[in-house]
Every structure is written in structure tokens, then in C-alpha cells.
């Protein structure tokens, strides 16, 4: 991306100070969000989310695996992010790896809860087939197709939509197997389990520009940021994870203020997102 001139940076910062951004939005307004589900039929679940010119695809693949020794009664979930070169020439080769790693770590922190599995957006116990022996491994892959700022919120929304679209095959365990042997399983082609995604949080990123902070920053606004705080909030209003980016320090009272504002903004975002997901699912079924 070509750098901005001094006049442009002053224009952006001045606009934010006056609560009027370059595209006419207020400080706490999101760009139009559109959701499309079932875009990758070969996966168990997939979704595509567009926020303005930012375009991301998320997919969920389920495979049978072995539970972790630490939590034999829970399935496993992993999140990976890939930055496609189509989004930015700078992502060519390994250019996007650093950003992809940062995004996937932030998403894991915001969506998967702690190491114990508590606070995860999905009930991991529902992924168990045979305790200690067989469980579902969920692989959540995010792909950045077009990048115009605020990738974290878009990826969080896409993952929530992809989980809503996910169907896990029902598994029958063969009866009469001895306790020591590896159980035989029959994966159904007809029956699928759907996730309850009401507990999956959304991510709200507040970007500090000048003396104010904004939501849903474009890439131009992000180039002017001193720091950014991403807060994931679920429908119950609980904070599920916080990530701060950018090296400039923030006053603790400002951070608390940001968290409270994020909680307020997330209510509209969750409602908007849930209605978009519902209409996308309905459209896919027709």
C-alpha cells in the first residue's frame, strides 16, 4: 500500500476527532457486513464475510482423532489463518506469515478460551465420541481474500458463521467391544449434528487514532493507529478474551472505557450478525 501524505493523515485524524470519518461513518459505526454460508461445499461448514472491502473466508473441517491426555472428555479445536496473496502483494511468499500467526493467536485467545477448555465458544464435551479414545477434531481455517483493515473482527464473524453452518456426522460406536481395544465407529452419511453457536463471541476491535478510538478501522485508518484493543464479547455480555496490538501504551482507565464501549457496540454487532447468518442459512437451504 502506498503511504499516505501528511495532508491525508491530518485529514483522517481531524475527521476522527470531529466524529466524521472519510467514508462518512461515525467513530463507533461498522461498515456494511454481508454474510454468505456454505461457500465451500467440501468442508463441514464454511462462510464468507465481507466488511466493506475486507473479505474473508472461514471453513470448518471435522476429523476423528484421539483426545488429549489432559482432557480425555473433550474434543479438540484448532484455528489457523492464512493470508492469501490476492489480498495484498506484500503477502507474497512468506510475507503474510507474521500477520497470519498474529491473527490466529488472537483468534484462539478470543474464541477458544483457556487451556482447560473453559469459556470456549463451543461445548467441547459434545465433540467426544468415546471418552479417552475417539473425539472430533475441529480444524477452523481462516483465509484473507481481500484486506482493507479490521481483519480480526471479520475473521471472528466468519468463524461464528462457519460454525453455524457446520454439520458434524453422527457416529455410532459398535457394541460389544472390549474396553482395551480401539472401538469401531460407523460415521453416518445421513444424520448431522448442528452446533449451538449462541455462546460464540464476536470480536470488537477499538483502534486508537489521535486522542479517540474507533471501531472497524479501514487500512488507511489502521496506518494511523497508535494501538488497538480487540475484545471478544458473547451474547451474555461476558468478556471472553482481550488482545492489545501496537506498541504505544494506554492509560488503564482508557482501557476500561474501551471495554465498556466494546460491550455496548457488540450488542448491535451480535444482533446484526445473527440475523445475517440466519438469512444466509435460509438462503442456502432454498
Amino acid at each position, binding site marked *: 500500500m502506498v503511504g499516505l501524505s501528511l495532508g491525508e493523515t491530518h485529514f483522517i485524524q481531524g475527521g476522527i476527532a470531529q466524529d466524521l470519518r472519510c467514508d462518512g461513518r461515525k467513530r463507533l459505526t461498522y461498515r456494511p457486513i454481508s454474510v454468505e454460508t456454505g*461457500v*465451500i*461445499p*467440501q*468442508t463441514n461448514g*464454511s462462510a464468507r464475510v465481507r466488511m466493506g*472491502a475486507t*473479505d474473508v*473466508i472461514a*471453513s470448518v*473441517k471435522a*476429523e476423528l482423532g484421539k483426545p488429549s491426555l489432559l482432557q480425555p472428555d473433550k474434543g479438540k479445536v484448532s484455528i*489457523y489463518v*492464512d493470508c*492469501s*496473496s*490476492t*489480498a*495484498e*502483494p506484500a503477502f*507474497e*511468499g*512468506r510475507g503474510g506469515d507474521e500477520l497470519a500467526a498474529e491473527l490466529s493467536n488472537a483468534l484462539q485467545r478470543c474464541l477458544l478460551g483457556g487451556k482447560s477448555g473453559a469459556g470456549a465458544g463451543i461445548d467441547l464435551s459434545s465433540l467426544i465420541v468415546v471418552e479417552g479414545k475417539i473425539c472430533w477434531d475441529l*480444524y477452523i*481455517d481462516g*483465509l484473507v*481474500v*481481500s*484486506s*482493507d483493515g479490521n481483519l480480526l473482527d471479520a475473521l471472528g464473524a466468519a468463524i461464528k458463521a462457519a460454525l453455524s453452518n457446520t454439520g458434524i456426522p453422527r457416529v455410532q460406536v459398535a457394541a460389544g467391544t472390549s474396553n482395551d481395544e480401539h472401538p469401531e465407529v460407523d460415521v453416518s452419511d445421513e444424520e448431522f449434528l448442528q452446533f449451538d453457536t449462541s455462546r460464540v463471541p464476536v470480536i470488537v476491535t477499538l483502534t486508537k487514532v489521535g486522542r479517540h478510538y474507533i471501531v472497524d478501522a479501514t487500512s488507511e485508518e489502521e496506518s494511523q493507529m497508535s494501538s488497538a484493543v480487540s475484545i471478544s464479547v458473547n451474547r451474555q455480555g461476558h468478556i471472553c478474551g482481550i488482545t492489545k496490538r501496537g506498541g504505544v501504551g494506554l492509560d488503564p482507565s482508557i482501557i476500561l472505557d474501551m471495554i465498556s464501549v466494546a460491550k455496548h457496540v457488540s450488542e448491535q454487532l451480535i444482533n446484526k450478525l445473527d440475523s445475517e447468518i440466519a438469512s444466509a442459512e435460509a438462503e442456502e437451504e432454498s
Partner: protein
Amino acid sequence: MEYVSPEGLRLDGRRPMEMRQIRAEIGAVSKADGSAIFEMGNTKVIAAVYGPREVQNRNQQISSHALVRCEYSMANFSTGDRMRKPKGDRRSTEISLVIRQTMEACILTHLLPRSQIDIYVQVLQADGGTRSACINAATLALADAGIPMRDLVTSCSAGYLNSTPLLDLNYVEDSAGGPDVTLGILPKLDKVTLLQMDSKLPIDILENVMQLAIEGCKAIANYIREVLLENTKQLEYRRGV
């Protein structure tokens, strides 16, 4: 295993000379100079073009014509079995080179000296015929970017199974171990710019299979021309001409 039934139907219900359903969409990546999504059946590819722009690496600059670069990558979720596919592995390097050579043959590079054209191709879903879909997507993206080209490049694959030439193989047919011919042509100039084949094939049957692939390429060219024409009409309407 039987890939063509006695009634002449394939596993997915197609006739031997029938193509999968093709779909194309222009302008999928708004920040790119040109972009397109191309679908052949369940194979789905997105391509973006950046340029012509200043050469990023000075020693690669060519004083008489444009430098064309290409990068091909597959999403982790794009195949039936999920696996991590790093960029730069041997297969993606080879396909990147194939796409670059094919595109270089049709771009009028001498009109853009000392510049660089980047083509990025991302596979979203793979179900056979991936490199053909990539070349078709790149052609659409270049046209969307307004890069001057001699002709559209279109590509199609063909194979030979159960003593029958087959057009536009899907993944199951591709994995059957029979011969696989991938062909890229400039349809109006009637020149072949890409030809790849694996496995064994008698030369007279090769001619038949190649001819079948050429027919497929021309059908794709007609479709791509329609898409571009429709896109131009939309632009014209919006400009109010």
C-alpha cells in the same frame, strides 16, 4: 472400477464430451487492479492481478518489456482431506511457473517496459482440473485489470479411461491413474500455449484426446467472452453512455 457406464454416462452423470458447470465472477477482490473467481464444477479458484506497477526488485527489471510474476497457493481447506499447504512447495512452484509462462505468451509485455505485473491465484476448492481453472481465472483477472493481451488464454483438461476419451476430468477420474492431458490455447489465434500430459497414451489416441481438449478450451473461451461482454455492458450502463 468403471468410470463410463455402458450407456455412456460418467460417474457424475455427464457424457464423455460434456464439461462440468462453469461459473465466473469478475471483480471479486476490490483492492486488486483486476480479479475474478472461476468455478469448474466443484473446483473454485480466485485470481487477483496487481499492476502494471513499478518493479519491486530492481535487478529483475527488464528494460524492453514487462516482468510477469505469478504465485499459486492452495487453501488449507481446499481438498477433501485437510492438510497444510505451504507456499513454495514443489507442486505450487511448478504450477506458478506454468501459469506465468502461459500468461506471458498472451500479455503484450513490450507495451509495458520496465514494469511488473503480479498474478496471484488462490485455490478455494480443488476437485480436479485445478491448473486449468487457475489459468482461466488469471485470464479473466487480467482482462478485468485492462492489461493488453493478444487473445484470451483458456485451458481445459481431458483424459482417457475405459477406452473412452473424457473431457474435463473431475478428481475421481483424475485419480484413476489414466492419462491426463492439460491444454491451454489462444482460441482466436488457434495456437497452443500449454500442453502437459502424464501416463502412457498411443499417439493416435493422443490426437483424439487433444482435439477434445481443444474443443473444451474453445467452449470456455466463448463463455469467458460472454462474461466479459456482460461486464462491459454493466460498466457502460453505469457510466450512462
